[in-house]
């Protein structure tokens, strides 16, 4: 997979913007310099045109042509390549510079600047009409009072200056660009170092080592703080669920080992010496029982895993509208045998028409698990009561027994997987401590809650709330 580097991207973006900036600067600089130089050249051109125009005098005698004071034309201007022509309306050319090209004889009216290229050299040309003849002492009637001056000067100097200005600006920009890149490289490296520190810190995290303290610098960086905090909370949650899983796995392994140990010892002791056929039979029957027990344990663990998987949204299921009372009835029917073995009774008091969206088998399993506990702990001759009703816009199912009750300190533990009450452990109830965990996982998967209430010597109430299906 191609990797991209933040540093490279930042540098690239910076160089690009700087280069664009430099280009813009060069362009504006060149444009502005050109404009300014041209404006000043134009003013100059105008002044020179007026100046040469002023060198035209009326003749001393009438009917003589204009007099042009050639000697007064600034030699320096002519040396740089200036050219001019003065014409008078109706008369034609009055005066011309030593060098002249007819290409410069521009037609037009009023004042006009043009650009012309002559033999590869660019010229700026001004055509100025109606330049008054300054000599006003005596105006001969046969000569016009205004002149037209065409003045051209080479533009080479301007171009050179414009180029030079462009070069200087570009050079300065490049130097600046280089300096900025170096500075930016250093700055970015420094700026990103907390990120690197954090990566180093994060790389120490493992299943054995969950401590993550973001480096102090990272906490001072506004952009990194949310990341550091998010990592901290994420790790805490991960550690919690990891520990939970590890504990579950440890417990599960422990619970699985015992039946396997029994099974193994049964078979091994059968094989220790030749036995009679009834002995083998008894051993096989025992083994079968143990295998069934193992099977039940595995089934319970799978159910729990499935309920949790579903609660975490990784399992899709089709739910139907279920009447709570009927699932309770079915569960009670299934437990009649156990109840009569314990000489206990189960009584159902159900309100009809309480509908939830659920898989009826799930709900039955929940009621069976709750009832099984209740019946097993019920003293002879007592009754387990099941009540189905509503409270606070929710469905409510209460399973109540008259058993020994659960001590307050044990109450928070009863939903833990593989938790078995002291009474259960010594009374050989045959459970694995998964029933209540499964019930809770299922109820919570349906968005409900389960709350135990118990008093030692008086009995236990399990109160289940489930969201109602109002459609």
């Amino acid at each position, binding site marked *: 997979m191609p990797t991209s580097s933040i540093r490279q991207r930042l540098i690239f973006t910076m160089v690009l913007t700087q280069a664009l900036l430099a280009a813009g600067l060069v362009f504006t600089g060149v444009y502005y310099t050109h404009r300014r130089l041209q404006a000043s050249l134009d003013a100059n051109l105008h002044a020179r045109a007026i100046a040469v125009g002023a060198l035209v005098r009326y003749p001393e005698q009438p009917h003589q042509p204009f007099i042009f004071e050639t000697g007064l034309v600034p030699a320096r201007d002519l040396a740089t390549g200036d050219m001019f022509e003065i014409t008078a309306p109706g008369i034609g050319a009055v005066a011309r510079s030593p060098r002249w090209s007819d290409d410069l004889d521009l037609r037009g009216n009023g004042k006009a600047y043009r650009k012309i290229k002559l033999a590869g050299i660019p010229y700026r040309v001004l055509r100025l009409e109606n330049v008054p003849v300054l000599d006003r002492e005596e105006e001969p009637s046969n000569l016009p009072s205004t002149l037209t001056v065409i003045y051209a000067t080479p533009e080479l100097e301007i171009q050179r200056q414009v180029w030079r200005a462009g070069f200087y600006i570009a050079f300065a920009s490049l130097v600046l660009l280089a300096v900025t890149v170096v500075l930016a490289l250093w700055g970015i490296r420094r700026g990103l170092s907390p990120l690197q520190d954090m990566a180093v810190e994060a790389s120490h995290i493992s299943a054995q080592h969950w401590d993550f303290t973001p480096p102090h610098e990272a906490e001072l960086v506004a952009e990194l703080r949310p990341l550091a905090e998010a990592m901290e909370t994420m790790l805490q949650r991960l550690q919690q669920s990891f520990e939970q899983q590890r504990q579950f796995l440890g417990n599960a392994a*422990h619970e699985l080992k015992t039946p*396997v*140990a029994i099974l*193994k*010892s*049964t078979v091994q*002791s059968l094989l*220790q010496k030749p036995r009679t056929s009834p002995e083998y039979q008894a051993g096989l029957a025992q083994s079968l029982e*143990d295998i069934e027990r193992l099977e039940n344990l595995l089934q319970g663990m799978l159910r729990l895993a499935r309920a949790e998987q579903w609660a975490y949204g990784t399992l899709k299921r089709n739910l139907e509208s279920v009447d709570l009372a009927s699932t309770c009835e079915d569960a009670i029917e299934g437990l009649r045998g156990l109840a009569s073995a314990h000489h206990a009774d189960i009584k159902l008091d159900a309100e009809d028409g309480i509908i939830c969206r659920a898989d009826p088998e799930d709900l039955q399993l929940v009621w069976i698990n709750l009832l099984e506990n209740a019946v097993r702990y019920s003293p002879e001759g007592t009754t387990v009561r099941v009540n189905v009703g509503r409270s606070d816009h929710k469905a409510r199912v209460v399973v109540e027994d008259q058993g020994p009750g659960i001590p307050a300190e044990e109450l928070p533990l009863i939903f833990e997987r593989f938790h078995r009450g002291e009474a259960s452990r*010594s009374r050989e109830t045959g459970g694995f401590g998964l029933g209540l965990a499964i019930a809770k996982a299922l109820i919570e998967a349906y968005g409900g809650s389960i709350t135990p209430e118990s008093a030692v010597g008086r009995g236990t109430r399990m109160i289940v709330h489930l969201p109602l299906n109002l459609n």
Partner: protein
Amino acid sequence: MRILVVEDEARLAANIARSLRESAGYAVDIATDGEDGLFMAESNPYDAILLDLMLPRIDGQELLKKLRGAKQHTPVMVVTARDEKESVIALLNAGADDYLTKPFDLGELLARVKALIRRGKGQASPVLAVGDLEINTVDRTVRRNQRAIVLTAMEYRVLEYMAHRPRALVSKTELLEHLYDYNWEKFSNVIEVYISGLRRKLNKGSAAPLIHTYRGQGYVLRP
């Protein structure tokens, strides 16, 4: 030898007991919870105790600490489903002599228990020797001067017990306590029957007597 098995899984306890009785000829008592286990361990002289950890009423580790706190030196083998290093270390440090994780092999359990008993009585070799008498505790055979001696199960158990502590005075009561489990009626005169049977078989071929009687006190096995 008499062993106490403290294990809440009744079937596992029964299987262990059967194996110990059949394959090693040990007397075995079973306790299914910690409280019973502690009571029995304190009131009977066991040669080894097999202890499960997850026990109702009194936890296995707690029981172990109480036993060791009461200066009980009986070798204890812990049978546990937990095999994390820390819990093994904690167990051995609490006074356990050995441990085995579930599910285990009955053969291994047996061998370890034999080794524990041997060590507990100051013996290293599984073949016990008293003069020219050799008792192989692995296959439970007895030889004297290379000659195989066939013993009844009870005679072997008496001899094995005494051979673990040669030259020590062993009373009839002690023998009764170590050879029978809880459920047996104990009659001291049966011991005399076994001893006389043993004497007869061991001394066959005019060898020097090995079992000496101290009237009113007990017996000593010595060359």
